[in-house]
């Protein structure tokens, strides 16, 4: 029998893998992929709560808004990454240290 806990465990694994991606990858696009993993795990939690609670579909509505924000976020983030590539000729986050100098 699959219960709420199983979904929460998968979502926790997805979340921590996303954190790992954000923390350890140098490429900015790859960091974005980690952020998408985190957003997906949050969505999975919301939909699981919506399924197993006695309320209506509020969790699914939240998940839809998260998807909308994720779409807007990835568009703006890729614009920033492209601008960074144009200015610095690299998308490695450790080389984007102009403010340090």
């Amino acid at each position: 029998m699959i219960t709420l806990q199983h979904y929460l465990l998968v979502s926790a694994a997805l979340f921590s893998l996303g954190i790992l991606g954000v923390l350890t990858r140098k490429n900015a696009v790859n960091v974005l992929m980690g952020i998408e993993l985190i957003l997906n795990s949050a969505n999975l939690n919301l939909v699981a709560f919506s399924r197993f609670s006695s309320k209506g579909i509020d969790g699914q509505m939240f998940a839809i808004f998260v998807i909308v924000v994720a779409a807007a976020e990835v568009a703006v983030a890729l614009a920033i990454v492209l601008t960074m590539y144009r200015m610095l000729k690299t998308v490695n986050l450790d080389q984007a240290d102009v403010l340090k100098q």
Partner: protein
Amino acid sequence: MSATDVLFLIVAVMIVGSAAGVVLSRSLIYSAFSLLFTFFGVAIFYVLLGADFLAATQVLIYVGGILVLLLFGVMLTHRLYNLNLTTERFQLIPGILISFAVFVCLALAAIQTHWHWVGDKSVQPTTDTIGRAFLGDYLLPFELASILLLIALIGAAMLVRRRSDV
């Protein structure tokens, strides 16, 4: 074990495995294609959870939109004659420690909490309810989301325009 449980296990392994592929693979293209399997796995989970509209939205927006955008990002930020699209890692040990600590905390919270979940609700089509909710209780967030998308559209176009034609 019922067929649903077997499907759940297969998809859970697929999601976690491909997410690990996204994070650990050296090639950016492999990372992007692993992300495809993660998104599809989450969509299958939505179907198992009775969220049919959300599953279709997941496939359309994440697989059809966000993943393609990310692939564009990978392709556009490398010189085309230098096609080893690899990435390096840094802070590997602290990253693994922190993400493992986060996983342990979340898993303990998920297991030890006494959830008041109801058993089997009957699964019904959600599209009708979601549509009514968008034009009823969620009208203000719905309009705000449209404004947010417009702002993101203008902002993204602003950011990547050529500086010469300001």
